[in-house]
């Protein structure tokens, strides 16, 4: 069962062909990793999939609907949520409030209801709060609920960002370098967390530089180089792929 399908997608920035005629599928319930040297077009591809950029050519199909012309907001409403390479938590808001924002797409109170403090919003707010605490407890950050999110340690900020994304109850979670800036112990924990998220039925697509993490948790790996796909396979096969080795380690002459 395919959840996300990238078909012949290209994106050019001036003279740079950032992504070139790229195609791959992400199966429902799997963890798929995008790897490649710096500048291979991984983050551009992420931006294309999550609605931050429009592809020049090609189409992106998510859950049976074409999404490549949608905004990031519309994509999120359809159940695809991303994190950012450089953590983008909401400043001046507590961990709890950050996570509560993640419940936005699952609640309804608008401007008028909010201003008039209509009774139906009370129950809704309570449910948002309860669900947020549930998520924080499952991630082990409930003790920091009242702390300003951006004042936490880097590793914990990543967890908060993932918690915020999980609060949206996404079908597909896009993680842009979830282990960047984490130490080895934190990276291992992050790996376990991502596997656990997949086990709850969330499909995961991640960009990551940490090869040990990618090889340990991914079901399939796509390798990019200069905007093109050079390999797509299971982790063990990728490790033996001559082209991948050449791209990463250079020609052996």
């Amino acid at each position, binding site marked *: 069962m395919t959840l996300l399908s990238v078909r012949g997608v290209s994106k050019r920035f001036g003279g740079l062909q950032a992504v070139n005629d790229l195609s791959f599928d992400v199966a429902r319930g799997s963890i798929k990793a995008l790897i490649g040297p710096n500048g291979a077009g991984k983050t551009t591809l992420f931006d294309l999939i999550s609605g*931050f950029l429009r592809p020049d050519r090609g189409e992106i199909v998510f859950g049976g609907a074409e999404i490549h012309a949608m905004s*990031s907001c519309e994509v999120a409403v359809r159940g695809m*949520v991303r994190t950012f390479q450089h953590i983008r938590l*909401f400043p001046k808001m507590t961990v709890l409030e950050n996570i509560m*924002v993640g419940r*936005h797409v699952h*609640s309804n*109170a608008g*401007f008028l209801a909010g201003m008039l403090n209509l009774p139906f919003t009370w129950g809704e707010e309570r449910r948002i709060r309860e669900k947020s605490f549930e998520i924080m407890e499952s991630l082990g950050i409930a003790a920091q609920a009242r702390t300003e999110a951006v004042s936490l340690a880097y590793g914990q900020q990543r967890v908060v960002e993932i918690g915020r994304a999980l609060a949206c109850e996404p079908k597909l979670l896009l993680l842009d370098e979830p282990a960047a800036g984490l130490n080895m112990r934190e990276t291992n924990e992050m790996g376990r967390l991502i596997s656990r998220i997949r086990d709850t039925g969330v499909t995961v697509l991640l960009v990551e530089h940490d090869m040990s993490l990618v090889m340990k948790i991914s079901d399939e790996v796509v390798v990019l180089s200069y905007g093109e796909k050079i390999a797509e396979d299971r982790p063990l096969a990728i490790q033996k792929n001559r082209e991948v080795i050449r791209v990463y380690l250079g020609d052996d002459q």
Partner: protein
Amino acid sequence: MARRYFAIAAFAGLIVAIQLTTLVTATGYYLTQLTMTAYYSLIVVGLCMLIGYAGQISLGHAGFFAIGGYVTAFLTTFDLKSHQGAIVSLLSKSGALVSRQDVYGGSLLTVHPWLACVAAILLTVVVAYLVGGPVLKLKGHYLAMATLGIGIIVYRIVLGTDFLGASDGISEVPGFPLPGGLLITGDSSSRVSNYYLAWGMVILGMVLLLNLIHSRVGRALAAVHGAEDAAGAMGIPTARYKLNTFVLSAVFAALAGVLLTHYNGGIGPSEAGVMKSVRYVAIVAIGGMANLWGALSMSLVLNYLSLRGYFGTYDDAVFGVILILIMLFTPDGLLRRHLFSDLKRAVSRNPAEEEAT
């Protein structure tokens, strides 16, 4: 939740206390400026919602105030007797028009103030949506300049339009009738009731805005303010939320314009002036940007002092200087929400903690 209503009650107490003080000290004439202060405060708190919570600046809110004031002033003073036609007779039959006497004893047929108010608000909503859509795509200085442009356009239009009184503005605007025999008017006989009506409007506005801040929408606006791209990625329609807040604050300004025009019995083009817009932004800034209570208290003090003439000929300069000083030394505003916790932290800060962060 209880805390915000407690603050509202405390503020209402302050309003009563001020009135009682003027009663005891036989200084009831202060209430006139205090009433005008209330209507200006209505603009300020609406603008505070836009600047402090949605993170969007507007240097054109005097324009929305003027749209509200001028529409109601024009409709309630324009004599329709010499314009008899199908539309006028239809309006007349549906009770939308009132016959009254002008100051010279001649009879007038004008639009009912309530209908004029509705028309003023509707026009403001339409204008705010039309200009807000494209303008709010801009950020920072560009947004400030574009909104400044809106203010200047409104100012030039009212200044250059003959049927809006050009540089004289519109005078002899009737009072605004309310249920229970109350009338929004500057007559000294209804000074006290108008003082309470005006501040009642402010308190109502504060309740609505405080509720909004603590709602799902308020949280989303804070997210948009803090990290717009991340807010979008969480499914928040950032452009629509910014636009709605812009329109909401424009409606606050227009409603203030309508009511103050009926209170003053007229409106002039200076109300649409750029320096008026700067003044409102300066008050929001000194109040702490994202701090409705700070903006309201600063508005109460500064507008009152200004209206009593304490700043003399430096009136506009005072607000300009305030804005410059705030931007230079404390861009987050003087009365920040976390002022006291920040102070506490600054006092108790020790070098070891410094190094750890």
